[in-house]
Each structure stands twice: as structure tokens, then as C-alpha cells.
């Protein structure tokens, strides 16, 4: 449904995309992952026709988005990262504008509004001013405006940012349902656990390049290792490093961090902490980084993901 080839885009001297290839088949959810500045929003905006690429091509349902912009627009539904709604008109009027712009026949507009409002739990709010909605309700309306014509390609950019837990769960359900009905979904997010919830394919962007792609379990199997991270006030003690070297997997020091790759995190903690000796009072925290998508990211980029993720965390003081 969506094919992106060799996409490049720079803003002045800053390269946002450095040759990105991407494919999203019909009925699949592809999650675009990356830290702030990785190029996710630039990629989504080029696919949506909002920005021109410096090089490369984007085709949607076989249509080149530059040569057949109007036809391509009819196929896609896009909810940009920032909430965009008309606050001084009603929820229904917000939805009506985008249903009409999507080219729905006049008789189908009301039915489409009713269906999407029901799916996004907005049916009791249709006649309320959009500006009077809560943050989660606004986010739902913002997303609903992209769904009215049942797009063949749905692009959601940070769709759950700022949404409450209930709205987030509901939105993820909706995304799964659309994909099950045959829509291709490009889902850009900060939140790694959402990707696992959606069972999406992953495209990992870093510095404007795709550094990995595949199913979550494939990526975890290929790249992720559980590790124990010890943080200190000041540099990790040489004693600790010397004492542990060779007894486990790889050990690394970065600033105040000592990272030990291990298949037995509990045993590693039990042995490593007593081995710190005089450095024990400087130990600030001990954290287990499990073999999940976050550790894939860590293994591939050398730095932690900046999305909010839960992990086993033990405070040392």
C-alpha cells in the first residue's frame, strides 16, 4: 500500500532523512520508532504530502504522491502529532468538514460521523464545542477526523501523546481493528510498549536512517541482551570493573554507568553489589534492562531510548 524509496530530506545543514526505504502492506501495522529528531515526523509529513523530499519517491496504492497528489490524498488519513481541531465549532462540525473533504457523498457524511463517533466514544459529545472537551477527548476527536473515510493508509503520528490510559487503550484497539479490516497503518510513536501491544512490525529510525526492521520478537532475538546497569556518584570503581570482568558477558563503562550484559540479572546483582567494597556508598541505583525492544534500541544505537518505559528498578539508597 505504501512504498517509500531512498527518501532524503535536509533542513539547511541538518539531514533529517538520509535515504529511507519503507514498505507498509495492506492489513499491516508498521510502527515507526525513534527518539526525538530521528526523522519520524519528517517521514510522515512527506508521505502525507505536507513536505517535499530532496530525493526519493513515495507511492501510495501505486500512486506517486507528487504526480497524483489529489488521488493520493483520498486514500490516506493522517493525524499529525499536534492536536488540530476547530475549538469554536462543535465536534460534529469538525467531523463534517473532514468527511466532506474526504469526498464522501452528502448522504454518507452523517452515517460516517455517527460510526466514527461511536467507535471513538464521542457520540455523546457530538454537539459540544470541541474547545470544551478534555485533553483525552480532544485527542480522540483529532484521531477520529482521520478515520471518517476508512482510509486505506492511516498514518498516526504520536497518536497517544498526552492521552489518558483509557483513551490510549481504546485507540490501540481501533488501530488493530482498522488493520484487521485491511487498512495499512503507519504508526509513529515514542512508546515502545505500544508497539508490543499492537504486535506491529517495527522500523527503527536513528539519525534519519533505518537501523533495523522486523517483527518485535525477531529483533529481540537478534539484538537484545538483558543487562544490569549500576549507576554511581562519579565514575564506576575500577575494582568493580576488574572484579566482574570476564565472569559475565560484556561489561561497559559510560560516565557514571557500569553495564553488565548477563543472562542471570538477579545472580549478577547478588554478586556485583557486595564486590563493590569501598565504592558501595557511591552506588546510586541498580536497574535491570530486560531483553525487549528497548534493549534492541540500546544494542543498536549505544544509547537508551528516551520514551517512558517501565523496567525492573532497584534503588540502592
Amino acid at each position: 500500500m505504501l512504498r517509500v524509496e531512498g527518501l532524503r530530506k535536509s533542513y539547511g545543514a541538518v539531514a533529517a532523512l538520509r535515504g529511507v526505504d519503507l514498505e507498509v502492506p495492506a492489513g499491516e501495522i508498521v510502527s515507526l520508532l525513534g527518539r526525538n529528531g530521528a526523522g519520524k515526523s519528517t517521514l510522515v509529513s512527506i508521505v502525507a504530502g505536507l513536505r517535499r523530499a530532496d530525493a526519493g519517491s513515495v507511492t501510495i496504492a501505486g500512486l506517486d504522491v507528487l504526480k497524483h497528489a489529489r488521488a493520493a490524498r483520498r486514500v490516506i488519513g493522517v493525524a499529525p502529532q499536534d492536536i488540530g481541531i476547530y475549538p469554536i465549532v462543535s465536534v460534529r462540525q469538525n467531523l463534517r468538514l473532514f468527511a466532506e473533504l474526504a469526498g464522501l457523498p452528502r448522504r454518507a457524511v452523517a452515517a460516517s460521523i455517527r460510526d466514527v463517533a461511536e467507535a471513538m466514544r464521542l457520540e455523546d459529545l457530538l454537539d459540544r464545542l470541541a474547545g470544551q472537551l478534555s485533553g483525552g477527548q480532544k485527542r480522540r476527536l483529532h484521531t477520529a477526523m482521520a478515520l471518517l473515510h476508512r482510509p486505506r493508509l492511516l498514518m498516526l503520528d504520536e497518536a497517544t501523546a498526552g492521552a489518558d490510559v483509557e483513551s490510549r487503550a481504546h485507540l490501540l484497539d481501533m488501530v488493530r481493528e482498522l488493520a484487521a479490516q485491511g487498512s495499512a497503518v503507519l504508526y509513529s510513536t515514542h512508546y515502545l510498549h505500544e508497539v508490543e501491544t499492537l504486535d506491529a512490525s517495527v522500523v527503527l529510525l536513528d539519525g534519519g536512517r533505518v537501523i533495523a526492521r522486523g517483527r518485535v520478537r525477531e529483533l529481540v532475538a537478534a539484538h537484545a541482551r538483558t543487562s544490569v546497569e549500576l549507576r554511581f556518584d562519579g565514575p564506576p570503581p575500577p575494582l568493580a570493573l576488574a572484579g566482574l570482568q570476564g565472569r559475565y558477558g560484556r561489561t561497559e563503562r559510560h560516565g557514571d554507568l557500569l553495564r553488565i550484559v548477563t543472562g542471570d540479572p538477579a545472580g549478577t546483582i547478588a554478586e556485583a553489589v557486595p564486590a563493590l567494597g569501598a565504592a558501595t556508598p557511591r552506588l546510586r541505583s541498580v536497574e535491570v534492562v530486560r531483553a525487549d525492544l528497548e534493549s534492541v534500541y540500546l544494542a543498536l544505537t549505544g544509547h537508551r531510548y528516551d520514551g517512558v518505559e517501565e523496567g525492573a528498578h532497584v534503588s540502592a539508597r
Partner: protein
Amino acid sequence: MSPRASAAIARHEFRVMRTDPATILFVIVMPVVLVALMQRLFQGVLTAEGVVGATGAEFAVPGMAVSFVAFNAGYTGLTFFRDHGWGTWERLRATASPGDILAGKVAPSVALSVAQMLILFGLAVPLFDFHVSGSWLALAVVVLALSLCLNAFGVAITAVSRTSQRLNAISSAGGLVLATMGGAFVPIPAMPGWAQAVAPALPTYWAMRGLRGVILDGGGLGSIALPVAALLGFAALFVVLAAARFRFDETKAYWG
């Protein structure tokens, strides 16, 4: 361009407009109030010019009509800035073509300008003893040409404005210059020589000339050919300027 998409945006702009009826009422009522205040003053001016039986409405009504449409030229721009402020600009661009957006946003502003002037002309008949000696159709054609022209001006000043403050500043100053220097606030013969020389460079001069010909000199469609051609020429110039400078992917800052 898609007429359906433009019409959808235009209907939406009308819905947005209706949420603030006080503003609409203001631009319709204020010219009426000002005509009431200034009619006697212009009666003297017209009588001094040799217009027999002048009521003053013959100048005050078209003058206020043209002035208030000039003052309101920035309204078109506001409709673009609002979308930037509400975060809906990118959504619109992802859904409709630039031409659809432009037509959908400008058409309601043109309709508002036409309604604003025609309502004033209509109310002036019973309220201020206003008479059109020529063709009402010709008067309506001038009104339409002026509305197109000043809304094209509104788009052009939007194109060069990155912030709503700049748009306000340019539209306020521009509206004042267009109204006064174009002879809508002060009759051309009463202006200093240098101002009389400059006046034809402004579209409002041609609007006032066309309206005066219809209202006072019994003019019909033939008499407004030159003024309407001039107004449409200015409109084309503003469209070219806007097309050269308008960047749909530019981020505009909106306050208020």
C-alpha cells in the same frame, strides 16, 4: 482544484464566522453609524462642488462602504492564521489542495464584503434618503470587483506576514491608506495636490470613481468599465504577488 472541496471549506468558514456574530454586526452597523455622523458634513462638500439637492449620503454611503471593506481586508488573512493557531493548517493541507484551501477561505470573505456594502447601500435608502441615479446592477458590479480586489490584497499581505501581529499592522495601516488616500474618507477635490496625484495608484480610488459615476452621474454598466477593469487589474496584481510569495508549508505564528 475541486469545487466540492472548496465549497466544504467555505461552508466551514461560514460556520466559524457565525460563532462570532458580534464581529459581523460590528462591520455592518459601524458604517451606518458613521454615515449618520458625517452626512451633514458631506452635504456641504457636495453642495460646494455644485451637486444640486445633495443629501450628503451620495458621498458618505459609498465612502464608508469602501472604507470599511478596506479596513476589513485583513479578515481574509485571519482565517489562515487561525488554522495555524488551532493546529488545523497541516490537517487541511493533508486533505485538500492549495487551490481548494485558498478558494474555500477567500470566498466567504468576498461574500462578507459584498454583503457588508450592499446592506449599507440598502439601509441607506430609507435611513439617509440615499438615491442611486444610475444602475443598481452597475453599482453591484463595482461592489463585487472591489471585494475581489481587496480580498486579493488580504491574501497578498497574508503571504508576506509570518505573524498575526504583522498582518494586523499591515492591514490596519494599509486599510487606512486605502480609505483616505483613495478618496473614500475625503473627496478627491478636497485633498492636497500630491495626494490627488497619488490616488489613482490605489484601487479604492477606482471604486469611488465607479460608485460616484453610478450614484451621482446616472451611470450604467458602460460607465463603470474603466473603474472595474482597474479594480480587476489590481486584483490580478495582488494575486500574482500572493502566488509568488505564499508558502503553504510556512509556519505562521498566531496570537489571540
